[in-house]
């Protein structure tokens, strides 16, 4: 993107950039290894090893407070796959994540378009808009817990004031299953929209301004330019935003834990929050580990997609 640099000779551009190696750069592999060994060690010990351990526990009968450890085969998996709360948790994880991504995608695109051009106060607006993302997850969620409180909810107050709802028939935002699910999705969206917007803004500003101008001269209106030119050009950026957003939603337990604690009646339980409830609160480390392992397939897919996005743009 950006200006085309001067091209010498009328020959087709090579598709891969030639690798430039510094002349005389003493390749000291020993020094290099020494420099990144500590970091690699850390990662292996604190991410790789626990991961292996998680797999190990999933096939065992580990419990908090017990030193016993036996191999139990697929027993844990069998029992959780039969448990309705687990199936609900998987469903919730998927539904929450997909719904949130769709809403966030639409909203952040709108917001990115709105914020693109400079205007008075844009810096302040940017600060305000970023608050949900930069404030610690738990604290923002508590704020929402107060906003969605059964009795004191400000939303309820406004609805009553507008005569849309009678005073004693106030909806229990966090107490009724579908409303609770919607609330969880809402808080996730609230957190992700700023993040996604900022990423999309970066993507939009990377498009040279002559492209939409050319489109306008070619006769394209707002919608055609958006859907046929701008968004396709932003595909890598959109992918990054969606993939990261998916991870943040799918692997999050904080919002659920604080907002609803999985309730009412496990209707808002997700994989991570169920893993916590089972493994730590319920002391059944093995079952908890087994539940959390179900995150892995999704993460693998996302990792694969991210690598694809990165490699596609490398070769561009």
């Amino acid at each position, binding site marked *: *993107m950006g200006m085309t640099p001067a*091209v010498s*000779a009328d020959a*087709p551009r090579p598709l891969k950039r030639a690798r430039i190696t510094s002349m005389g750069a003493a390749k000291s592999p020993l020094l290099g290894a020494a420099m990144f060994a500590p970091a690699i060690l850390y990662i292996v010990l604190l991410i790789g090893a626990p991961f292996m351990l998680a797999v190990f526990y999933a096939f065992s009968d580990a419990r908090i407070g017990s030193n016993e450890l036996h191999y139990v085969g697929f027993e844990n998996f069998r029992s959780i796959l039969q448990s309705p709360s687990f199936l609900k948790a998987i469903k919730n994880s998927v539904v929450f994540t997909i719904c949130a991504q769709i809403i966030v995608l639409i909203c952040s695109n709108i917001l990115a378009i709105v914020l693109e051009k400079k205007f008075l106060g844009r810096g302040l607006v940017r600060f305000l808009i970023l608050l949900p993302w930069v404030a610690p997850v738990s604290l923002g969620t508590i704020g929402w817990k107060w906003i969605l409180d059964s009795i004191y909810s400000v939303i309820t107050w406004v609805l009553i004031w507008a005569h849309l709802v009678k005073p004693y028939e106030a909806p229990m935002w966090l107490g009724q299953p579908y409303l609770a699910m919607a609330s969880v999705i809402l808080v996730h969206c609230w957190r992700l929209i700023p993040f996604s917007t900022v990423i999309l803004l970066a993507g939009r500003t990377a498009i040279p301004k*002559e492209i939409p101008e050319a489109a306008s001269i070619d006769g394209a209106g707002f919608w055609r330019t958006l859907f046929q030119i701008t968004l396709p050009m932003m595909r890598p950026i959109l992918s990054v935003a969606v993939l990261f957003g998916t991870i943040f939603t799918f692997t999050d337990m904080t919002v659920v834990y604080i907002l609803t604690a999985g309730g009412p009646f496990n209707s808002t339980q997700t994989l991570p929050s169920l893993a916590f409830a089972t493994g730590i609160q319920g002391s059944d480390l093995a079952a908890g580990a087994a539940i959390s392992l179900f995150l892995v397939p999704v993460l693998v897919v996302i990792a694969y997609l991210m690598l694809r996005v990165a490699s596609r743009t490398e070769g561009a």
Partner: protein
Amino acid sequence: MAVVQTRNLTKVFKEGELGAVNNVNLETREGEFLVFLGPSGSGKTTLLRMIAGLETPTSGEILIGGKVVNDMTPRERRIAMVFQSYALYPHLTVYNNIAFPLKAQKIPKNLHKEKVEWAASLLSIGSLLQRKPRELSGGERQRVALARAIVREPSVFLLDEPLSNLDAKLRLSAREELERFHRRVGTTTIYVTHDQVEAMAMGDRIMVLNKGVVRQFATPKEVYDDPADTFVATFLGSPPMNLVENGDLIVGFRPEHFRLADEIKEPKVTFKFKVENVEYLGAEFILSGLIMGGQLDGKKVVARLLLGHTYEIGVTYDFAVPERHLKFFDRATEKKTEARALAWA
């Protein structure tokens, strides 16, 4: 094909300051290749963009084909524009790049193929239709940009320095291609450049701009041989015209008219010329040095000479300029003024 006119066109970006474009009046002729020439910041691109509809004028009118288009969107003006970077849609194939304007104008789909192929053949890029822009060379991209512009059969072409991103060798062939293209298609074209060679080579008429003001609007011959002010005089021609002061006038003469006195048989003005630097360019010499003696003693001037003699650094020669090649400018206004007899001692 249409005529483009502007009346008192002005664009001011910052209040209180001089506008980027000030009171420009122009009228193209049908089918002409008109060049906006000027250094960066002269307003030539802003002027072009206002005609395209990408900038709104602060005051003044723009007319295309006799109709005032100030309130029309670029799409409605039926113009085509080629940007400096070509602005090809990187995610679309060449075919789809060219077809895009047709889609946008809602031209029936069954006509697309025929029109795209026509435009492609006009620019000899038929074999490139399935490629993506990043796989093309600079010259090929220019052709695709032109094909995309011509496919809608616009009434006016606007080109914004399309050659400046190409390197020197390529620029020459690309320029020829543009000239050939214009001859074949004949659409009224406005071309913006800072390169005076391009302007002279390609333009039917040149509008020379500086600081948002039109300095001269005439044919290449006229701006070269009869510049309207010192800016035009020094902007066109390389090396630039020599300018010396004489009383309340500025007198100019081009380096190619400054040569050995003996070789000039017509009425002339002579100077003692001490050569300080000799550049041998293969086909010609560029000599720079100082005038010795008289009221212009120590003044730096440049001469441009064909081969035939040798010149040595440090030697003073008798050089002269034919009187008919002297240009006169008023010292205060810097504008062209009448010829006068002068004393040079």
